[in-house]
């Protein structure tokens, strides 16, 4: 039965199909701007995998796409906003969360997703990240963490683990790095999970769960950057990295986030770390105004949803 694509390409009857049209379309295709494909991400980059999981989570959770907005910042992951066929916005560096906050406050019915990288969210956008978590604004934040500033040439990021070699630390990083789940839990997020690009089904389920939560949800996805991080640290290619994720990741749901820090080649603790209830920003605002204004409080007008 086995054939080679070489011979198949010459064999034209393979191209004649009697399959129904919808069978010839990838299930994620309706979520993509196919005119922009192929994308710019390097061979083996994990960002495309996370987009797959996101699209499948949207299919499974049956969310109304008219009520969905996707905001991303700058960087490799920031390109997601340009590749998805959703209402999306590519903001300036680090300002994905402030933009998304504005969207959510102006139209509370929107499901707002922030899709960005570790450098954008935790470095230049670090203050926005912790304050959005503190206020518990109803945002779904998907942080693709490739442990480096990838688009600008592999500089040390706040998430780069100890002793890793980067273009700005050619003799090894010595700064302690951020443990993002710990940071956002301490700041007040209601849902915190971490998966790797190896855990595709779990990641899709986590994104679906985040859509069910009201409040600041944060999902960190550890992703390979074969061009800059893995190559410079002699960690092989992205397939080797995926095998490393498979071998060295341990699922520990509910693990204390203070113990889930990343090292360069050690264990990766993955799972759902935090799932709790806290009043979100808009319900706290309403409660406060009802309390202090009494009868004078007027419900805000609902934004018109354009379709």
């Amino acid at each position: 039965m086995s054939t080679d694509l070489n011979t198949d390409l010459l064999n034209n009857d393979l191209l004649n199909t009697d399959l129904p049209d919808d069978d010839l379309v990838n299930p994620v295709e309706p979520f993509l701007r196919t005119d922009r494909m192929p994308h710019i991400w390097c061979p083996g980059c994990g960002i495309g995998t996370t987009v797959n999981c996101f699209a499948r989570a949207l299919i499974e959770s049956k969310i109304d796409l008219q009520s969905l907005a996707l905001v991303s910042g700058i960087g490799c992951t920031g390109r997601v906003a340009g590749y998805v066929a959703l209402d999306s916005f590519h903001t300036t560096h680090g300002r994905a969360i402030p933009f998304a906050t504005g969207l959510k406050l102006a139209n509370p019915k929107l499901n707002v997703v922030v899709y960005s990288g570790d450098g954008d969210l935790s470095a230049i956008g670090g203050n926005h990240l912790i304050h959005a978590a503190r206020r518990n604004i109803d945002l779904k934040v998907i942080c693709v963490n490739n442990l480096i500033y990838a688009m600008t040439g592999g500089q040390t990021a706040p998430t780069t683990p100890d002793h890793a070699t980067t273009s700005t630390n050619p003799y090894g990083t010595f700064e302690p790095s951020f443990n993002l789940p710990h940071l956002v839990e301490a700041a007040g997020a209601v849902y915190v999970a971490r998966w790797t690009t190896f855990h595709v089904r779990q990641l899709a389920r986590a994104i679906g769960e985040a859509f069910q939560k009201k409040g600041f949800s944060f999902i960190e996805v550890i992703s390979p950057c074969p061009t800059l991080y893995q190559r410079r640290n002699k960690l092989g290619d992205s397939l080797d990295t995926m095998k490393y994720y498979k071998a060295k990741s341990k699922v520990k749901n509910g693990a204390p986030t203070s113990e889930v820090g990343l090292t360069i080649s050690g264990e990766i603790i993955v799972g759902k770390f935090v799932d709790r209830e806290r009043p979100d920003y808009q319900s706290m605002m309403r409660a406060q105004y009802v309390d202090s204004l009494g009868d004078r409080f007027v419900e805000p007008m609902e934004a018109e949803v354009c379709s």
Partner: protein
Amino acid sequence: MFHHFYQAHFLIKRGGLVTKGRVSIVAERCKSCGFCIEFCPSHVLAFSSAFNAKGYHVPHVVHPEKCSGCDLCGMYCPDFAIYGKKNADGGKK
């Protein structure tokens, strides 16, 4: 853009096999990362010796009869170049 859909389905038709699922590959999008080949639970795929237009080796189906249509290849593929589908009759005939 011309998509070359390479489907195990056709091989199955020729071989008279009925399977649970089938896998489709858009050869022009593939960047040869090898995720689908490595993580396919039933080892349906292998690298082809052929190149696509960008010069990458594209996976091809070596065991179409084993495909369960689980779409794990589709979830792993960073380039949206492959996907699995379950056959409507579920492999029963």
